[in-house]
C-alpha cells in the first residue's frame, strides 16, 4: 500500500479510535448476521434477511452522519448501519425473535424492518422504496424548521426502479432538500441481476435528471464511502441539496433464508466476491496502519461472541407480546377504535 494511502483516514478527519470502532461494528454486524442464519437453520427463528457483504458500506456511511441528530431511513439489510447509529445486538435479537420488547415493532414486523424514534431511525415497511419520499419529507421539515440535520435513506439497486425513487428524487431536487439517497447496489434483486434490472445504465447517473450530483463508489472501500457520504452531508446542510450515492457491493448471502441463490448464480461467482470482502480489506488496512493485530482480533471476536451469545439468550427468553395486543395501536389511544 502506498504511503499516501497509509493513514488516509486521518486526512479524512477520522481518528484512529474511530476507524477501529468502524471495524468493530462491521465485525459485530457480520457475526450477528451469521448467528441469525444459524438460528434460522436450527429452527429457532422463521426467517432472516442477510446483509453480509454490505457491512463496510453501511458502517462507513453511518460514521459520516451525525448520530442522534440526523434522521435515518435504512432498509432491511442495514444491520451494520443501525448498529452504528445506536441500536444494539440485544435489540436486533428481540426483533428477529419477534418479542414484545423489540423496540422496532414490538414483535410485529419482520426482522430488518427497523424503527426507533429514540435513535431517529424512522419506521420502515416491506414495500420497497416507499421510504424515499419519507426521507424527502423529513428533509423538507428540516428546511422549513431551519434545522441543520440531514435525512439519510438507503435502498437497493432493484428498488431504484420504483416510481417512488423518481418522484422522491425529483421533489428533493426541485426544492434542494438536505437528503442523501444511498443505493446499496449489490448486483441482484432476489434472482434478477443488474443487467436485467437496469441494463447498461448507471444508477448514479440518474441524479443528472434531477439536477443534483450522483456518485458511484466502491462499497468495499470504507474510506471512500465515508468520504462521499461526508461530502454529501456537508453539501446538504449548506443548502447544496441532495446527493445520490451508488455504493457498489455484492450480496454474498442468498436473498433471504427462503432463497436458493444457486438457481440463478454460480458458486464461482459468489466465491470470487468473497475474495473482495470489504471487512477483510479494511482489517488489512488497519494492520498496515499499525492500528490492529492478531491479538486485538482475537479479543474482538471473543467479545463479539460473548455479546451475541448473551443477546441471543436474552432474545430467546424474552416474552412474546400478548395475543390481544394485536388490537392495540391502530389509532392513537384517545380514539377508541383500537
Amino acid at each position, binding site marked *: 500500500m502506498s504511503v499516501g494511502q497509509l493513514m488516509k483516514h486521518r486526512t479524512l478527519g477520522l481518528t484512529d479510535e474511530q476507524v477501529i470502532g468502524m471495524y468493530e461494528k462491521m465485525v459485530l454486524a457480520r457475526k450477528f448476521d451469521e448467528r441469525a442464519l444459524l438460528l434460522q437453520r436450527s429452527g429457532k427463528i422463521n426467517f432472516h434477511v442477510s446483509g453480509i457483504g454490505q457491512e463496510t458500506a453501511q458502517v462507513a456511511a453511518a460514521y459520516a452522519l451525525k448520530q442522534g441528530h440526523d*434522521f435515518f431511513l435504512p432498509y432491511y439489510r442495514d444491520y451494520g448501519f443501525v448498529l452504528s447509529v445506536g441500536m444494539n445486538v440485544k435489540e436486533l435479537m428481540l426483533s428477529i425473535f419477534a418479542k414484545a420488547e*423489540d*423496540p*422496532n*415493532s*414490538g*414483535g*410485529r*414486523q419482520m426482522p430488518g*424492518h427497523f*424503527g*426507533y*424514534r429514540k435513535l431517529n431511525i*424512522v*419506521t420502515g*415497511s416491506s*414495500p420497497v422504496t*416507499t421510504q*424515499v*419520499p*419519507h*426521507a*424527502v*419529507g*423529513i*428533509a*423538507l*421539515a428540516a*428546511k*422549513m424548521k431551519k434545522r441543520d440535520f440531514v*435525512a439519510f435513506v438507503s435502498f437497493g439497486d432493484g428498488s431504484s426502479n420504483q*416510481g*417512488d425513487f*423518481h*418522484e*422522491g428524487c*425529483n*421533489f428533493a431536487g*426541485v426544492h434542494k432538500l438536505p437528503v442523501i439517497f444511498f443505493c446499496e447496489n449489490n448486483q441482484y434483486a432476489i434472482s434478477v441481476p443488474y443487467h436485467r434490472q437496469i441494463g447498461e445504465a448507471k444508477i448514479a447517473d440518474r441524479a443528472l435528471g434531477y439536477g443534483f450530483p450522483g456518485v458511484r463508489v466502491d462499497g468495499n472501500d470504507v474510506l471512500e464511502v465515508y468520504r462521499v457520504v461526508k461530502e454529501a452531508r456537508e453539501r446538504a446542510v449548506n443548502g447544496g441539496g441532495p446527493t445520490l450515492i451508488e455504493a457498489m457491493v455484492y450480496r454474498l448471502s442468498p436473498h433471504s433464508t427462503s432463497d436458493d441463490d444457486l438457481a440463478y448464480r454460480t458458486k464461482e461467482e459468489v466465491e470470487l466476491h468473497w475474495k473482495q470482502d470489504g471487512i477483510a480489506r479494511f482489517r488489512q488496512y488497519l494492520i498496515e496502519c499499525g492500528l490492529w493485530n492478531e491479538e486485538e482480533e482475537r479479543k474482538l471476536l471473543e467479545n463479539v461472541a460473548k455479546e451475541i451469545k448473551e443477546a441471543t439468550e436474552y432474545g430467546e427468553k424474552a416474552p412474546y407480546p400478548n395475543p390481544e395486543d394485536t388490537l*392495540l*395501536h*391502530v*389509532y*392513537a389511544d*384517545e*380514539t377508541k*377504535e383500537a
Partner: protein
Amino acid sequence: MAVISYLEAIRSAIREEMERNEDVFVLGEDVGFKGGVFGATKGLLQQFGEERVMDTPLAESAIAGVAIGAAMYGMRPIAEMQYADFMLPATNQIISEAAKIRYRSNNDWSCPVVIRAPFGGGIFGGLYHSQCPESIFFGTPGLKIVAPSTPYDVKGLLKAAIRDPDPVIFFEHKKCYQLVKGEVPDSDYIVPIGKAEVKRQGTDITVITYGLTVHFALEAAAELENEGISSHIVDLRSLQPLDKEAILEGAAKTGKVLIVHEDNKSGGVGAEVSAIISEEMLFELDAPIMRLCGPDVPAMPISPPMEKFFMLNKDKVKEAMRKLALF
C-alpha cells in the same frame, strides 16, 4: 354565525389552523400561486408564503409520501389531491404507509397527515373527474375517512382532521363547493371524527347517507312530508370509523332503512352499513334494507344524458324513499 359556502368552509378551516399552529402546511399541485384548481387554497400563499403553501411537482405518490415523512417528523401537512380520481398513484403510500405507521412501530411513530380529495360527479367531469373512490380506502383500518355535506361539518371536521394524531382522508364533494351554503360559527369549533348526525328527525323511514346525496334526501324528505311520509335522515359524515351507534339508533327509529350513496353499489360503504344493521337488529326491521347507489359501471361518462343517468338526484331518492315508506 356567518353564512358561507362549502368551499369557503374548507379555506377558512385551513387558514385558521395554519394561524393556530405553524407546523400546519399545505402541499399539492397548483395549491400555491393558483390557489388550487377549485380555489380551496386561494389567498393562503399570500398570507403564509410559498413554503407553507407549496406547489409540488405533478407526482401524487410523492405528495403523499413527502407529507407522510414530514408528518412522522412532527409537522402537520395537509396534502391536496387535485381530484380524488388522481389519488390512485398514491394508494401505496396511503394504505401501506400512512395507515400502518403507528401500528407497525408499536406506537413509536405516528403519521398525522390530512389528505384532501375532491370527489363525486355531476360537473361534466367524465370518467376521471367524477369518481367516488372511498371504497378503495374504506376497508383499511388505520385510516380515518371523512365525507361531510355542509359547511358547518366541513369546517369542524377539517379542523378535527388537522388536529388528529392519525391519517385522515378528507373527501370533499366538488358539486357542493359553490352550491351548498350554510351557517358557521365565528368562533373556533370542531366536529368530532366518527360521529354521524341526524339531519332530520322522522318516524316512517330512515335514510342513511353522506356527501352530496344528503341534500337530495333532505329535499325529498321535505316534499314527502306533504304526502304524509316522515323521514329520518342520518348523515354519516365520517366513513371510518363508522358511527355504529348512530346507524343502529337511526335504523331502530323507523325499522325501515334506505342507504343512499353516489358511489357504485357493489362493495360500497352502504354494504357495510347494511351488514352492521342486519348483524345487530335484524328482527327490529319492518322492511328489507334498501340501497340506492350509482350503477355498477367503472365511472360516469361525460355525455350529459349519461351523466344524468348515472347521478342520483332528488327525484330518484324521493322515489326510493316513497317505495320504502309504502313497503
